[in-house]
């Protein structure tokens, strides 16, 4: 009995702490199959996903506009969050209903644009936090209610880093705080109240911190910007340029700390406040920018709070710079040093003194990738994928316009288990690059069967094509023993050889246009320029002969864009985005990499990382081990 109680206690603790938390999905294009644990089976409505959720669950909402027929109620401690942010994820009240009603301290709503809600006889248009909960990184726009057009906080709750625009209510056009609750780091603009508090109305307590409250409207003397009644507290806010009084007070216990507004706040209910013009960056209608200009009196004069150590400002930047927080939702950052004047600050510029270059972009992002070939095409080989094993990495240098300036391509031959004198090259994937815009250096061609143009590209090709070398044996010394180099452990080890290809661009191309990551590498078999082996379903170059397609074991069919596969769909080459530990000579890859078969037979779904050194993934005795 004691054991059972203990077990139940443990399970209860796990449930409470969310260790059994489930991630569920919502998508307009999901198949709506409960429990909605993948994007494919996602619920079509947020409400459906909430209905099957437990405390601690996370509901991720895909892009789109979710038109509501009834409000979304959140009564348990779950997180409802957009996948890609408020710019592309909308919850729309259809001018008929409240959008969200939240009543749990641990509930979080994050990353939505909440719009067109209507609740003309109650609390909260866009959102109503009744007893507790957090709203973060949301935009509330064009909502209406009797109390709190954008958001109503009834008895607590937190609203942080939100934009509250163009909402309407009788009390608190943008936000209404009834009995406590807190609002931080928000821009509250363009809201209207017909009775009290155009931007914000605090009734019996509540705190507003680091907000810009501007361009809101309310009747005369009723607080166009904010109306603070009993125990309303305002900290670090800028309340300016409202259409009527910036602030109004009523009752007792209200106070303004470190706030910028006009006219000057009376000393009887303000501390460290100022009335100077805040110096926003831009007040032009339609392009308002409530960040602070250099020299603003609102810089470094706020009151610090503990939460500022973890909550960023509305730009996502560190909330406190220079030791004291700024007033308003944005921390002021002095213009960073940009020595070359290309617009990219030195601290993030890989070429701080070169205006023509800004960034290094690497593929793969970390370390090297590997190409591994079989060279008996069109016949099948032994599938040890070590007839050529070459690591590669591209460094694409871009300018401040994100256009490609140059590419450094590094190729390191690790092994070749081949008797053929093979060459190696690659082709750009698209025809959109004009060959005359490129200049190539760094190749090693000694066999006189490659014809180059003056700029180093191979002649006779529609797409830019670079031959890195024309005979592996000229690049990497054979040790005199073994079939090739570095495929048999008993034979002497030869240090890998690296070749650096440099490609300069004169035309204007984006990284996506160049698309070097999807380059088309190939080997040239035994110095026969027309015999190429490519990755599966990669097209041959213009110089490859096609009569061998369908010959021997090859089952290529150009009419359906099928290339370099056997009749049983096996490849002659593979491309691995990490440095590959290749099989020893004559060892079939499936005997070295034990998940390779599962990956292939599952169409790439299972074990997509089959090449990694994970438990159960490989038989190390069948993988070449550098002596």
């Amino acid at each position, binding site marked *: 009995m004691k054991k059972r109680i203990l077990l139940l206690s443990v399970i209860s603790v796990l449930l409470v702490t969310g260790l059994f938390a489930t991630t569920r999905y919502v998508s307009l294009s999901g198949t709506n199959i409960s429990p909605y644990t993948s994007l494919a089976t996602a619920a079509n409505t947020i409400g459906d996903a909430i209905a099957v959720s437990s405390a601690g669950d996370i509901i991720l909402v895909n*892009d789109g506009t979710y038109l509501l027929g009834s409000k979304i109620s959140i009564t348990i401690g779950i997180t409802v969050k957009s996948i890609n942010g408020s710019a592309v994820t909308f919850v729309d009240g259809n001018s008929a209903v409240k959008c969200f009603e939240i009543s749990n301290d641990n509930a979080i709503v994050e990353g939505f644009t909440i719009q067109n809600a209507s609740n003309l006889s109650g609390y909260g248009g866009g959102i109503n936090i009744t007893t507790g909960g957090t709203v973060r990184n949301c935009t509330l726009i064009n909502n209406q209610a009797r109390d709190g057009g954008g958001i109503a906080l009834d008895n607590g709750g937190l609203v942080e880093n939100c934009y509250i625009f163009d909402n309407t209510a009788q009390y608190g056009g943008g936000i209404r705080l009834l009995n406590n609750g807190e609002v931080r780091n928000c821009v509250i603009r363009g809201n209207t109240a017909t009775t009290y508090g155009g931007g914000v109305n605090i009734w019996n307590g509540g705190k507003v911190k680091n907000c810009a409250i501007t361009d809101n409207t309310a009747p005369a003397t009723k607080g166009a910007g904010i109306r603070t009644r009993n125990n309303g507290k305002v900290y670090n806010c800028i309340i300016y340029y409202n259409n009527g009084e910036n602030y109004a007070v009523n009752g007792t216990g209200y106070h303004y700390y470190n706030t910028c507004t006009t006219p000057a706040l009376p000393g009887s209910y303000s501390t460290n406040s100022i009335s100077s013009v805040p110096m926003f960056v831009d007040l032009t209608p339609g392009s308002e920018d409530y960040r602070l200009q250099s020299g603003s009196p609102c810089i470094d004069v706020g009151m610090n709070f503990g939460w500022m150590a973890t909550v960023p400002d509305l730009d996502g930047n560190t909330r406190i710079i220079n030791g004291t927080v700024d007033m308003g939702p944005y921390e002021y950052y002095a213009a960073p040093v940009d020595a070359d004047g290309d617009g990219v600050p030195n601290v*993030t510029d890989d070429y701080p003194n070169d205006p023509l270059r800004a960034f290094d972009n690497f593929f793969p992002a970390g370390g090297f990738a590997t190409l591994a070939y079989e060279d008996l095409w069109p016949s099948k080989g032994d*599938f040890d994928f070590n007839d050529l094993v070459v690591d590669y990495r591209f460094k694409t240098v871009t300018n401040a316009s994100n256009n490609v300036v140059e590419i450094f391509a590094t190729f390191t031959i690790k092994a070749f288990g081949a008797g053929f004198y093979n060459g190696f090259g690659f082709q750009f994937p698209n025809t959109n690059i004009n060959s005359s815009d490129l200049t190539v250096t760094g190749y090693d061609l000694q066999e006189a069967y490659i014809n180059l143009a003056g700029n180093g590209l191979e002649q006779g090709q529609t797409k830019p094509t670079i031959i890195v070398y024309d005979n592996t044996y000229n690049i990497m010394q054979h040790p005199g023993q073994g079939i090739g180099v570095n495929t048999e452990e008993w034979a002497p080890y030869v240090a890998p050889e690296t070749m650096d290809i440099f490609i300069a661009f004169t035309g204007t191309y984006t990284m996506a246009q160049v698309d070097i990551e999807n380059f088309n590498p190939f080997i040239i078999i035994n110095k026969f320029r027309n015999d190429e082996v490519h990755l599966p379903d990669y097209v041959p170059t213009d110089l490859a002969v096609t009569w061998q397609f369908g010959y021997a074991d090859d089952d290529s069919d150009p009419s359906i864009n099928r290339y370099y596969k056997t009749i049983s769909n096996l490849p002659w080459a593979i491309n691995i985005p990490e440095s590959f530990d290749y099989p020893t000579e004559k060892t079939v890859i499936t005997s070295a990499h034990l998940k390779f078969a599962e990956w292939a037979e599952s169409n790439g779904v299972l074990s997509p990382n089959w090449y990694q050194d994970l438990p159960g993934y490989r038989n190390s005795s069948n993988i070449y081990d550098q002596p």
Partner: protein
Amino acid sequence: MRKIIVVLLILGIGMGFVLCQKPKPNGEDPQTELSKDINELDVDDNFKWKTIKDIQVSLTSSTDEVAFIKSEKGDVILKVFLKGGQMFDTKITVPTYITEVNLVCKGQSNKLSVVNNRLTFDFK
């Protein structure tokens, strides 16, 4: 009696052989060492043997900013300059097993799930 001794000796030698085997190097699982003959694999006609995938990316910032896309390991996949108020469209290429990336800009890091091979983010 002699038979019993012989049996015990054989058992002892057998056990010793088993117990004295070297442990397998890291990454090996004796249960899964056997794998299919590659010529017996049942591979779909349309399988591309791809280990990498493209992800379409759309980034926006209200101000001029340098933005990074990083892998979960922290490797920089993309580094670009965002012009304030303009959407920047590009693509990144990552291993097929990648399901999440970190978008870093303005001092914030946002972990995003890769959905439908597309990433859209507004740094505000």
